[in-house]
């Protein structure tokens, strides 16, 4: 494999890891607050649809982004209503929302565009443009570092950079601010938060809204950055992969970046090398495509060491008598 190819694979790794990373951080906020969110998939999907649809209708990718975020936050709020206010089962609520998103997106798409449940292909201002970082052209000639800067670091859409910046931002919020302290506490021991005079419900809703917002970014990037439009079930399990990455990362932001890049790399390799030859044995493309999912199963089965989830995760908070 030559240097240029390597750079291309890594470049595509970053692109493919971006929606995973945003969804993973979304899940991190939600689960750190004690609300298990299996509905990342559905939120991404609904955001993907509305951002593509609105971008197609208005011709503005920014309007699309706004619509994506709003739809995702609304869906998140529904999850909050079911699992925080009405103390329902968080897994069931999440699964229900995934089904809702899967059906609703295709239904509305068909109604609005009549293209078999997809949106029209986006063009021009309907898609995110690649940003060329300063001096990228000039520095391109510098050996090794130049191409790395030009190919790998420069030339992504703004959401990729936003996603990457979200990692240190999440870390800082979580471990350096009052809100972060309370958020972590409410996922571990909501009764401690409650007796300290802080609202458990308020904190969990705040986390849910952040989760919706980040899922909105993830979905928008999927439909208006990575691809040019919405197609049925386009998230293809990315929400679940993000959950696996979250567990793999032990609910920590920097580890989440690493985990998502690993999944992104597997996807990038599968895209680039359809059939790999190992001295006579050909590994078929299906195996390559399945790799991220196989890794997901391996992680979820607990083969990568013990990950201790937030202690109050999945349990609605009820004051004890």
């Amino acid at each position, binding site marked *: 494999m030559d240097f240029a190819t390597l750079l291309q694979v890594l470049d595509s790794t970053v692109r493919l890891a971006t929606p995973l990373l945003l969804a993973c951080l979304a899940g991190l906020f939600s689960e750190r607050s004690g609300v298990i969110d299996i509905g990342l998939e559905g939120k991404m999907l609904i955001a993907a649809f509305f951002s593509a649809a609105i971008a197609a209708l208005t011709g503005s990718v920014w309007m699309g982004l706004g619509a994506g975020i709003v739809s995702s936050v609304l869906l998140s709020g529904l999850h909050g209503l079911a699992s925080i206010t009405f103390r329902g089962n968080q897994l069931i609520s999440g699964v229900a929302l995934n089904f809702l998103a899967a059906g609703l997106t295709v239904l509305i798409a068909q109604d609005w565009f009549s293209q078999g449940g997809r949106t029209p292909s986006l063009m021009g201002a309907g898609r995110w443009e690649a940003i060329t970082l300063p001096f990228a052209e000039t520095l391109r000639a510098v050996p090794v570092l130049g191409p790395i800067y030009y190919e790998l670091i420069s030339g992504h859409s703004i959401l990729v950079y936003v996603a990457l910046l979200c990692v240190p931002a999440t870390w800082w919020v979580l471990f350096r601010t009052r809100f972060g302290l309370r958020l*972590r506490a409410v996922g571990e021991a909501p009764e401690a938060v409650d*007796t300290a*005079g802080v609202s458990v419900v308020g904190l969990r809703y705040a986390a849910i809204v952040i989760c919706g917002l980040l899922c909105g970014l993830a979905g928008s990037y999927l439909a208006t950055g990575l691809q040019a439009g919405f197609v049925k079930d386009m998230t293809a399990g990315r929400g679940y992969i993000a959950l696996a990455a979250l567990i793999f990362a032990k609910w920590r932001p920097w580890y989440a970046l690493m985990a998502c890049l690993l999944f992104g790399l597997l996807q990038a390799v599968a895209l680039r090398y359809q059939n790999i030859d190992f001295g006579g044995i050909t590994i078929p493309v299906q195996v390559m495509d399945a790799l991220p999912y196989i890794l997901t199963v391996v992680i979820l089965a607990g083969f990568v060491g013990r990950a201790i989830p937030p202690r109050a995760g999945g349990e609605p908070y009820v004051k004890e*008598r």
Partner: protein
Amino acid sequence: MTDTAPAIELKGISKAFGPVQANKDISIRVMPGTIHGIIGENGAGKSTLMSILYGFYKADAGEIFVAGKKTEIPDSQAAIAAGIGMVFQHFKLVQNFTVLENVILGAEDGRLLRPSLAKARGVLKQLAEEYGLSVDPDAPVETLSVGHQQRVEILKALYRQADILILDEPTGVLTPAEADHLFRILDNLRAEGKTIILITHKLREIMEITDTVSVMRRGQMTATVKTAETDPQQLAELMVGRKVLLQVDKAPAQPGATVLEVENLRHVDADGVERLRGISFDLRAGEILGVAGVAGNGQSELLEVLGGYREATGNVRLNGTPLPLSGPGSDGRARRVAGIGHVPEDRQREGLIMAYTAWENSVFGYHRDPGNQSGALMNNAAIKSEAAGKMERFDVRPPNPNLKAANFSGGNQQKIVLAREIERNPDVLLIGQPTRGVDIGAIEFIHQEIIRLRDAGKAILLVSVELDEIFALSDRIAVMFDGRIMGERDPSQTDQRELGLLMAGVTEDPGENAIAAIDARLEEKENRKQPRHG
């Protein structure tokens, strides 16, 4: 009475949960700078009253005055603002946070943590010096012993500048020495002018530390008296509403042949922590061996291994026959067939199925006995009538075998379990926490039943965290600490202090340095217990 306004005054507080009247027209005055005890049986409404004071529940009627001023306390925030701090029975701590983080949680000074943490560090140091409340501020709470975790709770309240401190059953989880230390801290706090409300069901503590005591019974405040002007007998009567025997009458034991021999018992739990580290003892017919210790030192595991629901290594012989400690034939039913009855520590989870009726519960573990079978089916009619008889003999109220276990009070639930195990006439009876959550009246009955069983020549292994109970019943006392038996004593030849030190793993009397010696041993234990992180 002095002219100063009471620190806390409650007037006509009432609170009902559905049909249950938890608090009925309660009025109480707590004077500043005193320790005011509130005593009552389980379910008397003590905790509900304090939860109202701390803003956890809203009273249906009544008024609260803090320092003479009428105050509304709709939530914990308001209670904290009014200068009320609460130390709950079950600590409200975030286990994987450090002491500092726990202390500032909810009382941060700004949006960023760093300045709050720095300030708290200084305040904690000062509080440590002032009241003898020293804890490592950077230690994660999960690595601290229970006594230290309790100090963190007190520090939390003091950090929020509480003038009134409510402690709910604070000594339940402490060794006697730790409890003494806590009382010294409370003494210091009182000397500094803080007001303390101490909720407990232990008469000894009330007599030892309080200035005034209020007694609650069935949701009502039955009396408030000066501690100096009362005695335990009178308080017990006020609590129960009739005369009670605080002492158990029993003749000296007449031990017979050795029934149960335990040798080098070892058990490692699912987290990889060794909970039993070589336990050996003999148990003879007609005696009660009491196992004392603070909860979490292996007593539960010992009972569960002998009762057949944990596997272990070592040797256990019943009447000379070895019992398998793992694999087939080591389960609870096999143990019962062999002649070991078991009254588990947690009757609601291990002793009973709460959603099942009393008669169904009366047969668990013995349900395959021929007498309970009718062909391939259970002989329900026979089981039911037998259950009715047992319930009558054990004075279970109401004596209705068709009621669900959940509908009986704690004491009556315990009697159902006891009846089931005792009436099977086992050679050995394992009893864990026989009177936990049981009211005084039922305690008397249960204690007498245990003594009667002993006098009938049965071997009894009693595990209890209540030292008074161990003293009242045991013919020999073994003290467990950190998975080992630290020593065996004759109850007539020992005292609370000696046992208290053994319970903290200190075998030689350290004299003045008792607290330091205890702290060292407890820390050692917590460090060993840390699960290996992957």
